[in-house]
């Protein structure tokens, strides 16, 4: 099986967000960059399927120079090769443009059996790339997967929904997006880290993928980015536990009026 995994490099979830001087982006100079956690589930699942059925795992990312370290992380986990799309157009584009770029890169890897993504890129939090990519690549999609069983030409997938799970059946090739709970991603071994340095990363730009720059113009633009409004100071409830409990319930009912 040939499995393509789309990965995104994102700020560590522990990052304290500061707004940049342009008022539209975050200060990213002291950010610790990681592979988006949901993409790690996708990489892990791809490796498990490959190890069970044979084949190869190819990583694809779109991002600046630093994004290469996200690919190295995935290669160190055990992926076989990677494609890095690096293009100035990426700075200004949106999810639609990013999906076009990724779709262009994934097409160069055809034929493949499966395309995996994280169900959400941490930070942008759009949850759009899997669906956009599936449509652009004309693939069936199953998103937010917590269980994947790959069979002959099809896969059974469990998907998380509000208050339960859906079972899906899909033809292959398909696009499946990974949710937390799908697996426990492995840590790269020292041997993995060493061998990752020798694994091939193909670097391409949008033109090499045959993409028209006009098609990458953003449809949605961030015009301002702000920190959330500060919250009111805390009112501490004193007394013994019995009185604290009663007083809290009273305040929630009489003052906050929420119960």
């Amino acid at each position, binding site marked *: 099986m040939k499995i393509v995994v789309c990965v995104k490099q994102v700020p560590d*979830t522990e*990052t304290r*967000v500061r*707004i940049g001087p342009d008022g*539209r982006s*975050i200060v990213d100079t002291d950010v610790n960059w990681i592979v988006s956690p949901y993409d790690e589930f996708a990489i892990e699942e791809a490796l498990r399927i490959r190890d069970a059925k044979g084949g190869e795992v190819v990583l694809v990312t779109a991002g600046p120079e630093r994004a290469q370290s996200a690919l190295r992380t995935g290669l160190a986990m055990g992926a076989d090769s990677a494609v890095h799309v690096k293009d100035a157009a990426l700075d200004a584009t*949106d*999810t*639609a443009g990013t*999906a076009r770029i990724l779709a262009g890169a994934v097409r160069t890897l055809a034929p493949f059996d499966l395309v995996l993504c994280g169900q959400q890129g*941490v*930070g*942008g*939090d*759009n949850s759009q*790339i*899997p*669906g*956009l990519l599936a*449509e652009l690549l004309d693939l*069936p*999609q199953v998103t*937010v997967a917590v269980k994947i069983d790959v069979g002959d030409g099809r896969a059974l997938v469990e*998907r998380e929904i*509000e*208050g*339960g*799970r859906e*079972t*899906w*059946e*899909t*033809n292959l090739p*398909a696009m499946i997006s990974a949710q*937390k*709970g799908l697996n426990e991603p492995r840590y790269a071994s020292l041997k993995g880290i060493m061998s990752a340095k020798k694994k091939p990363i193909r670097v391409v730009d949008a033109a090499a993928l045959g993409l028209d720059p006009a098609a990458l*113009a*953003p*449809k*949605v*633009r*961030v*015009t301002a*980015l*702000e*920190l*959330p409004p500060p*919250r009111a100071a*805390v*009112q*501490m409830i004193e007394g013994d*536990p*019995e009185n604290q*409990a*009663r007083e*809290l319930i009273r*305040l929630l009912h009489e003052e*906050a009026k*929420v*119960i």
Partner: protein
Amino acid sequence: MPGVLTFGEQRAGKPRRPSLEVVAAARRLADVLGATVSSVLVGPDAAAAAGELASFGADRVHAFEAPALATYATESWARAVAQVVAEIKPRIILFPFTATGKDLAPRVAAKTGAGLASDCVELQLKDGRLVARRPMYAGKAYATVEWTGEPQMASLRPNVFPLGTPDPARRAEVRKGVVDTAARARVTGVTAAERGKVELSEAQIIVSGGRGLKGPEHFHLIEGLAEALGAAVGASRAVVDAGWVDHQLQVGQTGKTVSPTLYVACGISGAIQHLAGMSSSKYIVAINKDPDAPIFKVANYGILGDVFDLLPRLTAAAKAHSTARGA
């Protein structure tokens, strides 16, 4: 007439609440624009939901009722919505940011060429164009977004947009639609979670537990208070990663971002990625032994104390409160 189009979810002719919130939001925009509100409903009995949608503001309902559309399939449902988009050319398309909406909206955006902003918490019109506000970094920051073209498509976070007062006298014109129902991936079954459990993202009240509970065997204290308050149960990443509870309960970055009217954090210190996911709650209660716990910085009410002393007493007080109110 160019207007506002919404996607609605229904089960057995009963629209789901987030879909009604979306129709109500669409109505408010359409009133300013002098436009109509159309809604797409898919599934047998879809038209039966038209009346309720109308009462919240829909002027027209496009119902796709083929038996093959009874269970959700992204491709055929996206085709249905895209067909209506091609027919009525809406300026604005609104989806609920629910499990189904989250799956479907991007596919429709790619089919129709619409720009999509996900998980919006505020919509406004500026010179007749849509301006939205949406959280990024799980709520550590809020972005204002604008669209460069049309259709302007947004998915709306459940539980944030007001329903308003329904007008039972309002009626919607129902149009039945037909679409190719072929799909290469489809739902073959649904397993519901335990009965009576309140879903986190739609809950008005959430009671969450963290490491302060010391072990999974004590998590019933959280469940007890949640039950007494009619609340959903949440958890911090620490206890999810430790395997105490299912990750579906995780609040924060890499879990769910929630905005209930009341969030009760028990034994949760308030790691930055947890605060990101819940600090837009209207009221926050923090119960913690550590006076320096960051959770107190976002809380409205704080109790410095032991969750083992407080939770049983709070549960009893909450039960007494609801009994007194019910009497």
